[in-house]
């Protein structure tokens, strides 16, 4: 098909008003599935494998979906920031803004029988797996309408029916768990794979290498995805890892380094990875990405990074802006249409928050539910067992 023509040229802009008039009659916005081939920002860097092509097949509908999904995630995380500062969200709140392209690109290449497992920066990953804004905000505020009925909190979102296995608070633990999901998929002879996401901080965890060794021995369909945002909490990658080339850390396991701010590159890499692991066992994808917020809401994020660095990434590499440029450059929508989408999203998010605020806190009896699947009538106790006790069904 036609090569990409990344042109926001003056002539294009001049033509736009005419085009707009004509196009409102005949240009299909966001519904065309006419294939479009776009090059990734940079080539993939391989380790012990042949990298996939830089040319990614997409279409206008997909690009506009990318825009909408990432913009929704961005808006959601910023709204969560405000809710946290208003003390409606308590405890830990780890925001994903800046990293949206990773989960959105991944979703575009997989289905809901493939599994995803991640750590605690999971709000957007959950949304990508089919979660709703209402479930998310309710859970963050500890309400019944939350995806974990208020009992999990920010770090413990799950959606088993669409292959999302959490939501884990212990750094690195999700990687062996993810290898276990892949084990089960292979055991059941599913033709599906698991993506286990972890950060550059977790990449040094011993259990990761233990699980990778077993996965390679047993040929498990597991893709380890290092979301390298270059900081493990306040520690820069070069202070934590002797070798911050995380895509190479698998040694005997092949790897690929990907521009994690380019949603099309992510999509291509994940598609490649899934095909690879179903035949050849594990692979590591390193997504070069960035988080605008600090590690969590307790971390301003600027004591170990310069504001110039943060704003520099925002200007040069923002994943949403990249897609906006593509959409405008290929004339798939107007600036106004994109802004309208963003306005719509803002409204959706605000409505979800308002509705979430109406959801009640869990009933006190919920303290004692779901401790066991089968409690055998055993007793459980509150702080003063002569005052509060319950029978576990």
């Amino acid at each position: 098909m036609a090569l990409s023509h990344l042109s926001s040229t003056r002539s294009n802009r001049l033509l736009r008003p005419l085009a707009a008039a004509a196009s409102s009659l005949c240009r299909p916005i966001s519904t065309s599935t006419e294939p479009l081939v776009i090059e990734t920002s940079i080539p993939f860097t391989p380790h012990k494998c042949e990298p996939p092509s830089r040319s990614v097949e997409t279409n206008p509908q997909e690009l506009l979906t990318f825009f909408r999904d990432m913009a929704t995630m961005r808006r959601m995380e910023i709204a969560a920031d405000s809710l946290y500062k208003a003390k409606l969200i308590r405890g830990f709140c780890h925001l994903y803004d800046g990293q949206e392209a990773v989960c959105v690109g991944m979703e575009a290449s997989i289905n809901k029988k493939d599994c995803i497992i991640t750590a605690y920066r999971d709000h957007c990953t959950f949304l990508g797996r089919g979660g709703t804004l209402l479930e998310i905000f309710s859970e963050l505020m500890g309400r019944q309408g939350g995806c974990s009925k208020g009992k999990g909190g920010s770090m413990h979102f799950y959606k088993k029916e669409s292959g999302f296995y959490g939501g884990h608070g212990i750094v690195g633990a999700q990687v062996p768990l993810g290898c276990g999901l892949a084990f089960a998929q292979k055991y059941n002879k599913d033709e599906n794979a698991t993506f286990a996401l972890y950060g550059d901080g977790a990449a040094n965890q011993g259990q990761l290498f233990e699980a990778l060794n077993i996965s390679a021995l047993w040929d498990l369909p597991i893709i380890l995805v290092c979301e390298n945002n270059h900081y493990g909490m306040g520690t820069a990658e070069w202070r934590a890892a002797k070798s911050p080339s995380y895509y190479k850390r698998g040694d005997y396991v092949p790897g690929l380094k990907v521009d994690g701010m380019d949603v099309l590159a992510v999509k291509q890499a994940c598609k490649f990875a899934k095909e690879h692991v179903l035949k050849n066992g594990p692979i590591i994808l390193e997504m070069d990405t960035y988080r605008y917020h600090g590690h969590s809401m307790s971390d301003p994020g600027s004591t170990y990074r310069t504001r110039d660095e943060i704003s520099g990434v925002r200007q040069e590499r923002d994943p949403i802006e990249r897609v906006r440029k593509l959409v405008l450059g290929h004339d798939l929508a107007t600036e106004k249409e994109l802004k309208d989408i963003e306005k719509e999203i803002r409204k959706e998010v605000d409505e979800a928050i308002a509705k979430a605020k109406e959801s009640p806190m869990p009933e006190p009896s919920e303290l004692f539910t779901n401790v066991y699947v089968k409690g055998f009538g055993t007793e459980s106790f509150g702080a003063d067992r002569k005052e509060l006790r319950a029978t576990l069904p």
Partner: protein
Amino acid sequence: MFRILTQRVLGQSLLQQGIRPGAVASASRCFASAAKDLTVREALNSALNEEMSADPRVLLMGEEVGEYQGAYKITKGLLDKYGPDRVLDTPITEAGFTGIAVGAAYHGLRPVVEFMTFNFAMQAIDHIINSAAKTYYMSTGQISVPIVFRGPNGAAAGVGAQHSQCYASWYASCPGLKVLAPYSSEDARGLLKAAIRDPDPVVFLENELLYGEAFPVSAEVLDSNFALPIGKAKIEREGKDVTITAFSKMVGFALKAAEILDKEGISAEVINLRSIRPLDRATINASVRKTNRLVTVEEGFPQHGVGAEICTSVVEESFGYLDAPVERIAGADVPMPYAANLERLALPQVEDIVRAAKRACYRSVPMAAAA
């Protein structure tokens, strides 16, 4: 060790032979109708075999469980029968393979993870507690974790400090886990089958020194449908003067102590806990309300141990019934020494249980001078 189990049916004939009936279990049925001897090892092996046969989702994972036939031969023959897809030898990487097993359980398989001993499980304890025990609660019922963690627990013989710890009280303090500790072959079969069928994470604490011991078991115990209830203790020996609680190997010691006490006119009721979590507080309290005196016995470290929980439960629920302070027999408050004489001092012996029971009955001899 040959233990006399009687039923009401056999009780008469045994009495006629001049053999005193050891236990007539009223709180729970006693299955020794037609005695066939089964070692604990055979009991565990047969339980694993039957459950793997019944449910294709059950699989075994651990070090040496396959080709080596099991470090203690518990999994003997299972690789040949079920193949390498279901009996998996792992590298020596507890954190890794335990995490993998828990993840497999998230997805719906039913792994049985063998730890060569529970000392090594400490390397995987984050997955047992944070990944397995708490997930059903955190996901409010979306993700259940039907996994069994099994292996030898507590002291063996002469294996030293790093290989001798009892983890019953650590695991039993965690909501979301079930913790079982079999003593006899009947316990081993019934509780392991129940554990594998259970939809929640179960920590199954065996004892290396019991593996070779044979116990008589009835036809009912040998049936493939046999299982014991989780959360129910068994009264191994009825008595009326003092209650002795124990689990795992200590049950045998408690029964020996009961024999000795019996000759001195003290009738001890021996409770085999079987289930450390859920703890059968009802059976324990009912017994103490009957006997008014309690001795708790365990092999593990004393501080914050199982006996401490049992004592508190009895003080909370049956204070008025106690005629004497609760006595606690436990392992010594030191890392396990190697020398045989010190090791003996570090573990409860039958005479310790006898002495404590006598103290509870105000029949003790004067205390030895402090060391």
